């Protein structure tokens, strides 16, 4: 128990991040790779939502990313949309070997913007970059879409783990930076603070800085 309390005190921030995108693009395995450095070749479809919390160290501060992994099938949108509430970050994932999943990104963006704050820090993730021979979406196309939409961009492979940590870190660091700039002293996201959930907004990222930041940094993260 004592240990638990100590941990709580060392937690400075808790960010809610959602993983969204079409079915079978590799969302759950991206999370498994990031949180546990594992990859499940026999993974099953996600039913409803699953989640995982991952601690990260940013500038000596401990940041906890609470990552919500959602079902890809449209039929689950009624419940998954509830999970967007309070999200400050999003990984919008497609599969570079299936064009359809890239074509659907627009839908997911709409979904995200309908159910969450416009300023959610978002990264477009082209997963399965190890499938070189089966590639249907070029890196340039991914980049162009990200630029047009003001998103970060990265290509990853949960299988060979390339860029997976970078994808999550990009989002979390950016949220952290925005927060630091805003100096939101009163909104420190202690877990004991019940206001962090359910109220609809965990952290309010006020202005449109994210787009500018997103474009400026795009080259750096992939």
């Amino acid at each position, binding site marked *: *128990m004592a240990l*638990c309390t100590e941990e709580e005190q060392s937690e400075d921030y808790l960010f809610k991040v959602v993983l969204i995108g079409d079915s079978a693009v590799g969302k759950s395995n991206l999370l498994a790779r990031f949180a546990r450095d594992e990859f499940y070749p026999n993974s099953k*479809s*996600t039913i409803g939502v699953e*989640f995982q919390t991952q601690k990260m160290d940013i500038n000596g501060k401990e940041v906890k990313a609470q990552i919500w992994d959602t079902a890809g099938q449209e*039929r*689950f949108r009624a*419940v998954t949309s509830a999970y967007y509430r309070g999200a400050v970050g999003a990984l919008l994932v497609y599969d570079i070997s299936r064009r359809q999943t890239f074509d659907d990104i627009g839908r997911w963006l709409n979904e995200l913007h309908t159910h969450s704050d416009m300023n959610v820090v978002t990264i477009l993730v082209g997963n399965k970059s190890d499938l070189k021979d089966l590639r249907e979406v070029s890196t340039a196309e991914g980049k162009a879409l990200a630029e047009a939409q003001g998103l970060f961009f990265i290509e990853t492979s949960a299988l060979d783990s390339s860029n997976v940590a970078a994808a999550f870190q990009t989002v979390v660091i950016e949220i952290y930076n925005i927060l630091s700039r805003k100096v939101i002293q009163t909104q420190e996201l202690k877990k004991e603070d019940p206001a962090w959930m359910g109220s609809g907004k965990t952290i309010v990222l006020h202005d449109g800085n994210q787009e500018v930041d997103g474009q400026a940094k795009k080259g750096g993260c992939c």
Partner: protein
Amino acid sequence: MCTRFFIRNSTAEELDSRFAVRPEYQGDVPKTHFKPRVRKTLSARRWKVALSQDGHVDIAGVLKRIQKGVEFICYCLIFYVQLFSYSVFIHQSKGLFGSSCWVALIPTALSMNEMSSGNGGGSSMKHGRQNVERWYPIIGSGKFITTPISTDDGQPINDPSTYSDLGDDSEAMSTNDAGLDKNVTQWKLGLHQIGLDVIRTDRALIFYESEANQTKLWNVLAIYAWVDNSIGYVQGMNDICSPMVILMENEADAFWCFERAMRRLRENFRSNAHSIGVQSQLSTLAGIMKAVDPKLHQHLEELNGGEYLFALRMLMVLFRRELSFVDALYLWEVMWAMEYNPNIFTLYEMSRSRSNVGADKNVASNIDSKLLKQYGKFERKIIETGQTEQKSPLAVFLVASVLETKNKRLLTEAKGPDDVVEIVGDITAHLDVKKALNDALNIQEKYLSKASASL
């Protein structure tokens, strides 16, 4: 016609081999706790005795054994499947299934009711075959798809890489489907989703290494999505269907078993823009928790906004993800036996819109003790207390019992919804099915007594 179901008369070992896990995935799947026991687990020989001449199972006899706890028939998992299929035997006209071209029979304009009344044969079958070939030649071709075959507005997408090996049939794909109705378009839009899930279904099992077996699962799900088009295909159905496909050698039998199982589960999968059916079970769960453990309920409500969404998967796929394959089947079997209602077949036929087969009021009023004994333990309690409007299935109480076993940790350690998921997730591979079910029955009793006290 004798045994309609092609059940292999296998020994326990042989049967287990059907659920064998690929060596490379041994460490990734939950361990099986169930062990067949001499004289407790039904042997293949005893199982055969329970079958009547024409292949029906003596349901009352078998149930009696289960309820006595003397002989859990776990490894004859086919039992529960028969439980559902029984009415098919009775009500379906003979020869409807087992047919090699059964697939062609289904996607006609037949509604579910017409089908179950057994009057849907004859010319409409031929018509159906023509239709299905025109709409979608891949069914019955031994292949399945994982990429979309049509756009949102119903225009076919021609992907040569997918259909090149289909020969002449592929021409049918390119015919303009504009004239076909919305249902067909809707159905086609979901087909690739089924494929994406089929390749991920129980792939730790050797059984699904075979493309033919994957296709079998795909066919059953694709046809079901057509037949029950107001529900369609929803992720999770594959987890429910997979055991049927493994247990029933014949594809048509697997379909009917799945269809029967879905009669009590389908409402969970009904979805629209605002909700998904299982949420009604989740709110029942909230009600049960509030009644039997208000303190824990309040805590969970504060952490999760009272929606109990963390239990969604357990209810939708009936603990398939928390248990090993065999343990999940053991759970289903005992659970469904406990829910058994002698009027189950009448209830099925009267209304297929009920997600769970609750008690029948007419029976409740003039029931004698002899008849009462035929009911499953869970269902009997409902009849005895006269609370026949209580419609929640045992699975909901089972989730409540799982939460109760974690009561202390949830109250002291859970500080966020992720903690709840983690603590509840701990049951994976540790859940004692028999104990959990008994706990669930106790919770049911507590709940019913509270409910009657408040009347």
